[in-house]
């Protein structure tokens, strides 16, 4: 990594902000000793299993559980009749049954749950439940669903949300006009740790749930409603999370395991297998997008018109927010005077879709970046030049009317990409090249024959944190005391560590603010207030911000206390390396001595600056907190006779405001770029009439080390004055521009239009 630091060069604390200390859970994870949610165990534990609908759309006419109940070892077989509270849940709308009642709306919808003393027994009992269905025609086309040409999947019709953005002239004309219809397939988060958790009844009607999730408090709310109990009776603790990427924002086994635990009085564990996991979580919304870009002859955008259809599948999940993002970010990181965007999120009988890294922005970026390349060709400009001419910057007014009020270095990202060296050309000498460097890899499909190189560029934009007027906050408790002769801090939040490294960052923040080396992050749980979701690239900003604020309060209190003890004023004191010091006299005392028996304990609820809802007619409003930007340059070798692709390099420049942990930043950029590569080339849940055809890692392919090239990464640190430490959320932007850059490179190599991702070999020949 080349790190380019803009601005301040404050002295860094050892293992504080701006350094890359080891993860607290790193060694255990590498050694295979880390306990994931699927490793949970409890004495007298039962195993839960789920019966799922085999049909994407059907009326349930009868459920006979007698044979299942009769199996020795079975403790419970529950259906919707056994849901004591509201038989509905959902992130934005409670539209999804805990267990199907009258209608099933997707293949894989839970119909009944079983608890038994052995997982095999539970599975066997599931097979003995006799459900009779009246099969209905599935609604599978999002555009038809919007037009109302098909049956309503839910009583209110099939449109979950329509967002309209209207800015400037609505009937613009331009010298150069390019149009296109683009499609994005259904990507999966493909986290490796399947949905799993353990519900332990407390003997008085409540339950303790240990679960891998992204947002403990929103899980809690939905569980409480379904169980019909009070919030204090459902306590959640985060179990080890094996990846999330949005797929754990919705509930999976949480209510089911809790129901079974309360019913049987035993702890109940549930673990999905890989196939069930594909039915057990939401996916990325597939999209169909119609774009029209008008520009002057020299490539300056005059207007953009777009219609975007996002297929939300059977239940709403976070479709509303996905629509908001796709609409507000629908023209990309460009300054466009006249914009008309309509974006719909729909109900169909396809698998439910919801949160996945970069949602809404990922789909739109494939559309608008494909269009920018078309425009470049139409105007005779290079792909980077057309983008530079339209690049937004600080001060640009978004299509929502919002003025961008911190760094938006789009042109600089492109300049830096252009300045990076290109990899050397493809080897055409038969037999010389290492097969692993060629399309097809060790499968020995080419020794250089048919291989053509292409280069492509893309830039993306993402809103960071929650938008559109949402009351977005995080809660943190920071406690400082002397423990065993050392100053020690414990940090408590409900923020989900899902692998991204928040636990490391929180330690770093405390070290920087309190000068204390020993920082322990307590397990996340609902015993403290909400931290919000681990999504929208927001936890460093939000829970980082909350921990920092709590640490500052602790510092304030400590310095007042020390001022009295040391007969100084608090203002002249500071903390550094476990000592109290003043600028004038240097070290005055060891922190541990000043602390004595005292304890400083502060809890803070921290918010980012408020945002506004979008005007429902015009889509105007200051909807977003912060914008993040990344740009990629992809170099690919395509075997044009076989349609196989080798990505040779995938270089990235991203502005992160401040790299709190530079190594973690690079990790996010590599991982996000790989996920974007997956969407470009292979990752798609294929459905047929609403039925998933490839619910396995044999046929849902994710990139391997031979698919993902080493990356050159440049990280810019252009501080955002509104954000803690100036940071800008990192996790999502690299996923957004990676996909269109790779597709652009393949277009350059093949001359094919490529209007759909993932690009498959048969699209290229």
């Amino acid at each position, binding site marked *: 990594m080349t790190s380019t630091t803009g601005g301040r060069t404050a002295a860094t604390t050892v293992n504080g902000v701006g350094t890359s200390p080891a993860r607290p859970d790193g060694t255990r994870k590498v050694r295979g000793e880390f306990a994931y949610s699927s490793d949970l165990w409890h004495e007298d534990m039962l195993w839960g299993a789920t019966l799922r609908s085999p049909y994407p759309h059907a009326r349930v006419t009868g459920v006979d559980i007698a044979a299942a109940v009769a199996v020795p070892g079975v403790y419970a077989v529950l259906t919707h009749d056994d849901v004591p509270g509201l038989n509905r849940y959902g992130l934005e709308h409670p539209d999804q049954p805990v267990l199907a009642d009258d209608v099933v709306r997707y293949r894989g919808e839970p119909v009944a749950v079983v608890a038994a003393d052995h997982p095999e027994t539970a599975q066997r009992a599931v097979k003995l439940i006799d459900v009779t269905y009246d099969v209905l025609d599935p609604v599978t086309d999002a555009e038809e669903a919007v037009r109302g040409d098909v049956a309503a999947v839910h009583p209110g019709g099939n449109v979950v949300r329509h967002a309209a953005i209207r800015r400037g002239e609505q009937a613009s004309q331009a010298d150069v006009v390019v149009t296109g219809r683009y499609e994005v397939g259904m990507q999966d988060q493909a986290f490796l740790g399947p949905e799993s958790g353990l519900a332990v009844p407390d003997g008085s009607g409540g339950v303790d749930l240990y679960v891998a999730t992204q947002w403990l408090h929103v899980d809690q709310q939905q569980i409480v409603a379904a169980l019909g109990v009070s919030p204090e009776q459902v306590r959640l603790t985060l179990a080890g999370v094996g990846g999330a990427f949005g797929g754990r924002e919705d509930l999976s086994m949480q209510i089911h395991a809790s129901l079974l635990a309360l019913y049987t009085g035993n702890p109940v564990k549930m673990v999905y297998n890989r196939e069930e996991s594909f039915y057990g979580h939401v996916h990325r919304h597939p999209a169909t997008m119609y774009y029209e870009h008008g520009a002057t002859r020299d490539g300056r955008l005059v207007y953009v018109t777009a219609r975007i259809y996002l297929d939300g599948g059977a239940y709403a999940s976070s479709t509303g927010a996905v629509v908001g993002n796709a609409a507000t970010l629908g023209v990309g990181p460009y300054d466009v005077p006249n914009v008309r965007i309509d974006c719909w999120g729909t109900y169909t009988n396809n698998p439910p879709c919801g949160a996945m890294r970069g949602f809404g922005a990922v789909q739109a970026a494939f559309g608008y970046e494909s269009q920018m390349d078309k425009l470049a060709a139409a105007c005779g400009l290079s792909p980077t030049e057309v983008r530079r001419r339209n690049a937004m910057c600080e001060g640009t007014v978004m299509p929502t009317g919002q003025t961008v009020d911190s760094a938006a270095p789009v042109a600089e990202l492109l300049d830096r990409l252009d300045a990076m060296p290109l990899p050397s050309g493809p080897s055409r000498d038969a037999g010389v090249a290492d097969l692993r460097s060629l399309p*097809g890899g060790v499968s020995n*499909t080419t*020794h250089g024959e048919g291989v053509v190189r292409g280069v492509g560029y893309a830039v993306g934009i993402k809103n960071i944190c929650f938008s559109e007027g949402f009351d977005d906050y995080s809660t943190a408790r920071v406690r400082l005391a002397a423990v065993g002769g050392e100053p020690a801090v414990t940090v408590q939040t409900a923020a989900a560590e899902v692998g991204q490294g928040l636990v490391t960052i929180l330690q770093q923040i405390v070290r920087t603010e309190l000068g204390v080396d020993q920082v322990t992050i307590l397990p996340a749980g609902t015993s403290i207030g909400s931290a919000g979701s681990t999504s929208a690239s927001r936890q460093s900003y939000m829970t980082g911000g909350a921990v920092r604020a709590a640490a500052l309060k602790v510092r304030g209190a400590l310095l007042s206390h020390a001022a009295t003890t040391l007969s100084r004023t608090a203002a002249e004191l500071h903390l550094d390396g476990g000592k109290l010091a003043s600028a004038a006299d240097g070290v005055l005392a060891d922190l541990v001595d000043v602390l004595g028996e005292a304890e400083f304990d502060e809890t803070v609820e921290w918010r980012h600056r408020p945002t506004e809802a979008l005007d429902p007619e015009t889509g105007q409003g200051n909807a977003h907190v912060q914008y993040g930007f990344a740009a990629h340059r992809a170099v690919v070798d395509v075997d044009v006779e*076989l349609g196989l692709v080798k990505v040779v390099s995938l270089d990235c420049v991203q502005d992160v405001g401040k790299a709190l942990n530079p190594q973690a930043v690079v990790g996010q950029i590599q991982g996000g770029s790989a996920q974007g590569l997956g969407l470009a*080339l292979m990752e798609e849940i294929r459905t047929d009439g609403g039925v998933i055809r490839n619910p396995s890692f044999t046929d849902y392919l994710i990139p391997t080390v*031979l698919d993902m090239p080493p990356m050159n990464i440049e990280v810019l640190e252009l501080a955002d004055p509104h954000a803690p430490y100036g940071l800008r959320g990192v996790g999502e932007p690299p996923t957004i521009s990676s996909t269109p850059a790779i597709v652009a490179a393949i277009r350059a190599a093949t001359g094919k239009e490529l209007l759909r991702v993932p690009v*498959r070999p*048969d699209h290229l020949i």
Partner: protein
Amino acid sequence: MEFVRPDSLQEALATKAERPGAVPIAGGTDVMVELNYDHRRPEALLDLTRIAELATWSASGGYVRLGAGVPYTRLIDELGDTLPGLAMASRTVGSPQIRNRGTVGGNLGAASPAGDTHPVLLAVGAEIELASARGVRRIPATDFYTGVKRSVLEPDELITAVLLPVAGTAAEQFSKIGTRNAMVIAVCSLGLVLRDGRAGVAIGSAAPTPRRVSGAEEFLAAELPWDDDAPLPDSLKRRFAELVAAATEPIDDVRGTADYRTHALGVLARRTLTWAWDDYRGSVRACA
């Protein structure tokens, strides 16, 4: 489910005779997937990993007798030069972990049309050795596969070995299409051998069974300029590619379309023939 662990082949065959429902398990890389997903629930598993003779190979009289239980990793390390075609196919199987466990015997036992070793076994003219308490029989690979995931293996039989000619001056190629660059099930594949004026050609994942393409073999035997050093004319490569493509009987599935499979096999036919011919001319010259 019972787990039977015989120490000798004799014991294993006796068990199989008594309990034909016992499912053999070698590397387990197919069997365990089926068990985990409850696609199969056998009364017993017959563990073959303690039978030493299944995990050995020997070479004599121009042939390698490869025990059914030799894992891919060892095959690649120990027989890479002797059986280059089979080693090429083995390198494309799964990931290092799968190659450490998986075996040719298991690939044959599973008899998937997409199994990577099959086109090579067919193209080199391998024989499969099957044993039961009733005796031992050897059958040509061509006669082994009878349908999708079906073979001539009788319920009381085990696959004990595969007999393959040492490559020597023969040129062997294996080529496989997948939609990512490693660890992928074949969309289609092709094995090609040129030896002493004869050719072996076979395709995988392009018909209900792995399939030898006799028409293309005969064409090459007749038309290749065996005694000439000149590069191959394009017309010959094209005709060969057409014959291979014509022998396919593929389906559309989630891994690829039928048309793509047929097209890709034509391309692979042309390319592998070019490489094999270069190798063949090279090794024949070296020996001359």
